[in-house]
């Protein structure tokens, strides 16, 4: 889901950085100082979990988990994802300084959208509906991310169109897996510790 350094054009990079700055500042406003350890530990958990490779046929994909990150953190998923991406850039050189903004937006914005779309539904007592919402949350968050990546590429250079289409198509299985994982993960949290889903992180300072 990362876009490497050097691929995108200056206008796209600047737009991405500006949008990220806006999202991050909303997130930071909602994150009081006393919440920093909580958000940080959860961010580390997402960082670690996103290194998990799940098999799909002969190949494997790594988890994205921006949907469930959004569900748990709301707007705070902007700073959370920013920090995770910065660490990936420093430690593994995935992504980099100039694409940090656009990559953050591509991952975190779908998270926030899914938070608004599904948080209430997921937290409802009703069994089936909340599970469907959880699946949709995982599926759509990756889907939106794929679309945003595609848009970033196409706005850079028209000839990226076919690459962009292929990227969205290639993410289809990832979307399904993320949907399933998010569904079971939400079911797990609801049984084991519903407070985590209750959005105490997301609900602002």
């Amino acid at each position, binding site marked *: 889901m990362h876009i490497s350094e050097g691929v995108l054009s200056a206008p796209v990079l600047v737009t991405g950085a500006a949008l990220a700055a806006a999202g991050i500042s909303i997130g930071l406003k909602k994150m009081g100082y006393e919440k920093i350890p909580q958000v940080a530990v959860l961010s580390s958990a997402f960082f670690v979990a996103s290194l998990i490779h799940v098999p799909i046929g002969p190949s494997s994909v790594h988890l994205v988990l921006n949907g469930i990150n959004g569900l748990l953190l709301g707007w705070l998923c902007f700073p959370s994802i920013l920090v995770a991406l910065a660490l990936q850039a420093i430690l593994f050189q995935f992504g980099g300084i100039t694409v940090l903004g656009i990559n953050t937006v591509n991952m975190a914005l779908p998270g926030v959208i899914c938070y608004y779309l599904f948080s209430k539904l997921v937290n409802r007592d009703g069994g089936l509906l909340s599970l469907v919402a959880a699946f949709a949350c995982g599926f759509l968050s990756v889907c939106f991310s794929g679309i945003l990546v595609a848009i970033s590429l196409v706005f850079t250079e028209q000839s990226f169109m076919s690459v962009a289409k292929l990227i969205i198509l290639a993410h289809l299985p990832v979307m399904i897996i993320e949907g399933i994982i998010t569904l079971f993960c939400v079911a797990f949290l609801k049984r*084991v*510790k519903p407070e985590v889903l209750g959005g105490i992180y997301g609900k602002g300072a």
Partner: protein
Amino acid sequence: MESNSLIINLKNISFSYSADKLILDHLSFQLHSGDRVGLVGPNGSGKTTLFHIIMGLLRPSSGKIELFDKPANEEKDFREVRKKIGLLFQDADDQLFSPTVLEDVAFGPLNLGKSPEEAIGIALETLARLDLSGFENRITYKLSGGEKRLVSLATVLAMDPEVLLMDEPTNGLDDETEEKITDILKGLNLSCIFISHNLDFLFKTTDRIYAMANGKISLDEELVPHPHIHVHKFGRLPHEHKS
């Protein structure tokens, strides 16, 4: 199974996490069927590491591993072996990841290819054997420390292993739970290796105690009985003198 056959055979195993310190240094060790062995050693001497080497979770930098009379080198070899050797982790919290006890105990049998019905049957039976009937629907994460330890044991026994490796099974348990686990372990008819800092526990549950130090294992076979006087406060609270 033929008795006294060689189950675990480690030859000249060396291992290190980082270049600057050798954790296992040309270590050799053998476990025969029916052996009940204790393992002691200071913190950081590599006891847990040794278990992970035996299970193929870590690979030695040199040396040979033979398990059940077959060389074990690759992940594939270890996969077979893990069905027969049950490992209990130092921290029971690391072992239980399913929402409920039943799901967790059934996880192993399901991986061995059992049908869900069979797996549930095996799980319930194992729980009953450990006096844990009625725990099926408890949330694993909410169990107390001692309960977690017992359920972890159930998850391992549900796979019907031939050998049991346990990493500090009595750590952090109160006396009553410790006694319960000691009794259960004494009653199990399996080959086993127990790591513990608790000599008295090992004395009750094992036949031989090895010590680990400087990356090697050594055996102290001699019995050194020595009387001494034990005087202490607090004698009215229920307590037990180990050994």
